């Protein structure tokens, strides 16, 4: 057997150990990327092989915490893919207006930039006051940062262009308060947001939603876990509710393609069809 194939087995065993010991199920994560990160971690871990990591993971929580940090990727930005927010304004907001109250779920919200971006759009469209926004992630570290809403001032300045391309109606700097290198998002943008821990691999639906944002999360999932998460969203969405995926996540490659119609192909915005 080739060394690569042996390592493949070792990685299976490591992921199994993590699951049984800590309950985090990375067995259903996109394999190529997980393998890459395990190899990366291995080279600086003092272990000679993936097998050697297994007893450490089982007996040393601190070792696992360091490894888990390698697994969690929370790269995000304000108004990532501005055309998405523009499409939300033009094609989703008019329908959201027809509901007296709107519930929105950001699944995999990472450090919160996406949540604040959409909150700004809702504010400018006059929908914010009747919205309840659930921002969830399974990474407590990311959630904590989302809750704080403090970002590098330079990064926010860079996002001004994105904000404008997203159809921004005011001046982006009105939404944050800069103090030297750090800037805090305006407190009003948090008022309607509930941040909480939620794992798409193991937790269930917690309410009826009108709009679900789950962007750039499926790229880390294997098909089975993606299927589970789509099941949750489909269960949670009202008829005519909206689902928005990441720019390179196409619902056509999933088993749920028939349950939704396309609202905007490029923005990956879909609308749940009536029926079962």
């Amino acid at each position, binding site marked *: 057997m080739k060394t690569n194939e042996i390592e493949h087995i070792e990685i299976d065993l490591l992921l199994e150990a993590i699951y049984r010991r800590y309950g985090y199920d990375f067995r259903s994560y996109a394999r190529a990327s997980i393998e*890459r990160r395990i190899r990366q971690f291995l080279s600086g871990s003092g272990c000679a092989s993936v097998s050697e990591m297994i007893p450490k993971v089982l007996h040393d929580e601190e070792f696992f915490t360091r490894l888990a940090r390698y697994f969690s990727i929370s790269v995000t930005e304000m108004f990532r893919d501005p055309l998405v927010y523009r499409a939300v304004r033009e094609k989703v907001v008019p329908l959201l207006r027809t509901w007296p109250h709107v519930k929105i779920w950001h699944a995999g919200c990472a450090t919160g930039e996406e949540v604040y971006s959409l909150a700004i759009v809702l504010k400018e469209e006059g929908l914010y006051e009747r919205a309840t926004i659930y921002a969830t992630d399974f990474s407590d570290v990311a959630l904590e940062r989302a809750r704080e809403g403090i970002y590098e001032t330079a990064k926010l300045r860079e996002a001004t262009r994105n904000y404008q391309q997203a159809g921004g109606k005011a001046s982006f700097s009105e939404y944050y308060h800069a103090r030297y290198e750090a800037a805090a998002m305006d407190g009003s943008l948090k008022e309607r947001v509930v941040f909480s821990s939620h794992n798409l691999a193991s937790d269930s639906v917690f309410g009826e939603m009108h709009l679900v944002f789950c962007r750039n999360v499926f790229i880390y999932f294997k098909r089975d876990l993606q299927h589970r998460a789509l099941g949750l969203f489909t269960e949670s969405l009202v008829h005519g509710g909206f689902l928005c995926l990441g720019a390179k996540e*196409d619902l056509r490659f999933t088993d749920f393609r028939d349950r939704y119609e396309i609202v905007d192909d490029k923005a990956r915005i879909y609308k749940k069809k009536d029926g079962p």
Partner: protein
Amino acid sequence: MRTKEAQRPPCSVRREAVVMGGSAGGFPALTAILSGLSPDFLLPVLVVQHLHPGDEGLFAQHLARAARLPVSEPCDKERIERGHVYTAPANYHMLVERDGTIALSLEARVNWSRPSIDVLFESAALAWGEGVIAIIVSGASDDGARGMRAIKAAGGLTIAQEPATAEYPFMPQAAIDTGAVDEVLPVEAIGRRLVECGGWQVKNCRL
């Protein structure tokens, strides 16, 4: 290192895919190679070219104009088809899964790049082993050098654009300096070489 075309060993391995990496000056080299592949070319071709973060699919469109094979930016989990060219979208790494699908990822930059050539090549080495043909063309980075080593170690065929013919010789030279490059060729010859190697399967299937 440079082998004369006539002296090259015959293709004796079943090849499954071609991966190519380019950076500064990569576009003309990649188009020259792709325009040499006819529509009946059998292998999938996966391309990482370092892009401006705001590219939005322009590179793929330009490449499509030069190539006779279909070219597209894939979505995550898209199945890899024969005779199709896939280009990594700006801001995403592109990897190959063992089940023959494409995975995109937002992991940190590698060699200051996302997409990174090393990331594609290393995953291709794991997925296809000796079935990969890897090509490095013009660039001012050393991205791809590690990836070439991984592909060579897995038994794949590694080809670098002849540095003297590259707009930016640094990248192919960095790959050559690892000692993991099998053949150093000008771009026109790379196209011909791919046809030889990619055609091998058909010939044998018909025997």
